[in-house]
């Protein structure tokens, strides 16, 4: 019997309404007890967590691991190492691989890779449509049986409303949501940044907020029609926040996530012409940022997800309007959220922890998300005073595409524990990098 005791840390477990300095005893990969001055069994490993925060393991429900097919950008091995380094104990990986995860063989492959090379838990997300083409349904029942925890054509929007309606209906018995990449491609076509003052000045083709809002509205209406659970990926506009808030108040089964970059960056960042400020949805305005933060606080937005989107350097240099969309996020998310939202008092720490653990676990019905007795011993330990300067050269991820290079932050992941085993710990403890 293996045992581990984490001593004297501030345990923040929103699922159990705990926020107190306590010990956590782990036995056989599960939480055995949480309390004051626990007696550890003989031979237990001890971690001195004084001054640290002890949280349920963070779950990133929106990650691109790129394997199979795009191993030059990321693999299950490197992506899960990046997750562990960023404080995440589980990730959900999107279906836009090559081949697309639209059939059981691909799901099995990803899960086998995760078992043999993965550092954190990996939950695949299956495609909604065959080949992400938006024409025919993928084999959704078999994908669910193979272990897909949700369905999404992420990266593309299912423009065919009839097909999307049928996907929602067909997946009702599986208890897994459809995740919507809400972007009306007829409104966004040719765009590479938010449509607004900055796009007009820079002469870049803009994507109006309406491209997201009309699709969020459609998906809410379809959720109402079908009774299905629709989850809105990477919500980015004040208008979409209003639509989701209204739908939730009427009891529609809609949930939503937001990325760290949409919370801390605006379209102003594009003035640098840095292609790492290009993503879909695009960076929006200050007003949108404020609405997103408010929605994250009040629960209109259920969770934070990174939309970790690794790309090779060759795809993220050169002309802005020719570059690929997306940035890596796993290794910068926690530090940014702690420093830019929690530290200035915009977001209570317990809310942030909940949005990173309990809430994604609940909406995807995943194990974990809390530190109750018998729960899997997945924990994220945070050093709230640890200073960090973001240096892409030190990323575990295979890719370096981040707009946050050189940013400094206070507060960062310190130790990541999966199934009672420490899978990562901060290398330069004690020295401010």
């Amino acid at each position, binding site marked *: 019997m293996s045992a581990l005791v984490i001593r004297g840390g501030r345990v923040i477990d929103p699922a159990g309404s705990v926020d107190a300095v306590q010990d956590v005893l782990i036995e056989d990969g599960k939480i055995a007890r949480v309390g004051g001055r626990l007696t550890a069994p003989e031979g237990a490993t001890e971690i001195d967590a004084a001054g640290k925060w002890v949280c349920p393991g963070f779950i990133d429900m929106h990650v691109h691991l790129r394997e199979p097919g795009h191993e030059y950008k990321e693999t299950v091995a490197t992506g899960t190492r990046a997750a562990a380094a960023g404080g995440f104990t589980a990730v959900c990986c999107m279906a836009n691989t090559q081949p697309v995860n639209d059939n059981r063989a691909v799901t099995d492959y990803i899960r086998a890779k995760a078992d043999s090379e993965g550092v954190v838990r990996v939950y695949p997300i299956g495609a909604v449509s065959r080949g992400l083409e938006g024409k025919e349904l993928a084999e959704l029942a078999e994908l669910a049986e193979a272990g897909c925890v949700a369905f999404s054509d992420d990266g593309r929007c299912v423009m065919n409303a009839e097909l999307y309606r049928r996907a929602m209906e067909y997946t009702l018995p599986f208890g897994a949501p459809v995740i919507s990449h809400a972007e009306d491609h007829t409104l966004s076509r040719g765009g590479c940044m938010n*449509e*607004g*003052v900055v*796009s*007009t*000045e*820079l*002469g*870049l*083709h*803009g994507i*109006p907020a309406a491209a997201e809002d009309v699709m969020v509205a459609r998906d809410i209406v379809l959720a109402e029609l079908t009774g299905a659970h629709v989850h809105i990926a990477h919500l980015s506009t004040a208008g979409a926040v209003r639509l989701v808030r209204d739908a939730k108040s009427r009891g529609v089964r809609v949930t939503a996530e937001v990325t760290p970059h949409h919370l801390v960056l605006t379209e102003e960042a594009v003035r640098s*012409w840095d292609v790492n400020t290009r993503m879909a949805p695009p960076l929006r305005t200050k007003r949108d940022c404020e609405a997103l933060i408010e929605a994250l606080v009040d629960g209109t937005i259920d969770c934070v997800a990174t939309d970790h989107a690794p790309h090779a350097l*060759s795809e993220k*240099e*050169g*002309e*802005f*309007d*020719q570059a690929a969309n997306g940035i890596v996020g796993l290794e910068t998310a926690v530090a940014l959220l702690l420093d830019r939202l929690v530290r200035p008092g915009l977001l209570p720490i317990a809310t942030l922890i909940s949005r990173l653990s309990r809430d994604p676990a609940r909406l995807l019905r995943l194990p974990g998300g809390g530190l109750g007795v018998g729960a899997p011993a997945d924990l994220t330990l945070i050093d709230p005073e640890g200073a960090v300067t973001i240096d892409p050269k030190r990323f575990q991820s295979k890719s370096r595409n981040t707009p946050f290079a050189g940013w400094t932050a206070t507060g960062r992941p310190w130790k990541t524990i999966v199934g009672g085993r420490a899978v990562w710990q901060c290398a330069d403890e004690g020295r401010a990098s």
Partner: protein
Amino acid sequence: MGWTRKDLLTIRELEAAEILTLVDTAASLEEIAGREIKKVPALRGKTIVNLFYENSTRTRTSFEIAGKWLSADVINFSASGSSAAKGESFVDTARNIAAMSPNVVVVRHSSSGAPALLARELSCAIVNAGDGAHEHPTQALLDLLTIRDKKGHFEGLSVAIVGDIAHSRVARSNIHGMKKLGMTVTVAAPPTLIPPYAQELGCKVSYRLEDAIRDVDVIMMLRLQQERMHAGLIPSLREYSRYWGLTLERLAAHARPDVLIMHPGPVNRGVELSPEVADGPYSVILDQVAKGVAVRMAVLLLLAGGRSPEAHQ
């Protein structure tokens, strides 16, 4: 005031005094065009690369003549028939050219921001010869030089820029430059051709040609690209021309008798300009082209750090 910048990327980032330095320098160089021997040794031994990723006859030729009159070695590189056609990336091509130690790279590109990217990557001087729908600073400078030549000053003049503002780098550079020099600018077009938040650029917006051209000192007509029709921004060239084409009748009815008609070219005769207007007494379109060479000489001279031509006389 002198010139201290490494590059000329935008009008937006320039001070009014810097714009005037460029315009004044250009004005002092205009007389070279009238000489029997059009050659001054100001940039002898300097190398200028024209890196054109987008078709251009007028601008490329203008830069080429400007460089040659200043005695620089001018090399033209266009995207077709080059490594770009073989799939080499823009950044790689640029680094390769930089390795050959040019003094100035003049770049035209369909992507906004491409010159800024080069300026960051390369240590030589970069001139933006038009990037996407972003800026076209030398066009704005030659427009300003033309206006001052005809009107004698800038302060207080009013200008209407008419046409596809949304996709026009010429409009953006001119709006910035004209505002900085104390002019008022109205942009006019159907709403689908006006970019969002156009007022934030500091100009007025009009949706009616007759209103926009009333009592202004300068009318600048922009070329309408055929693609705009296919993109669903206007129903037809016929309808556009009917409501937005500048004709002698419209000029006579609504514009001042001393108004200047400008166009950055190439003109769609019969669409945005009737032939009688393009060739008529109000038109200064060919003056613009002539002044383009002087402006580009001034830009190359200031950026390449050559001695002024007077020193050699």
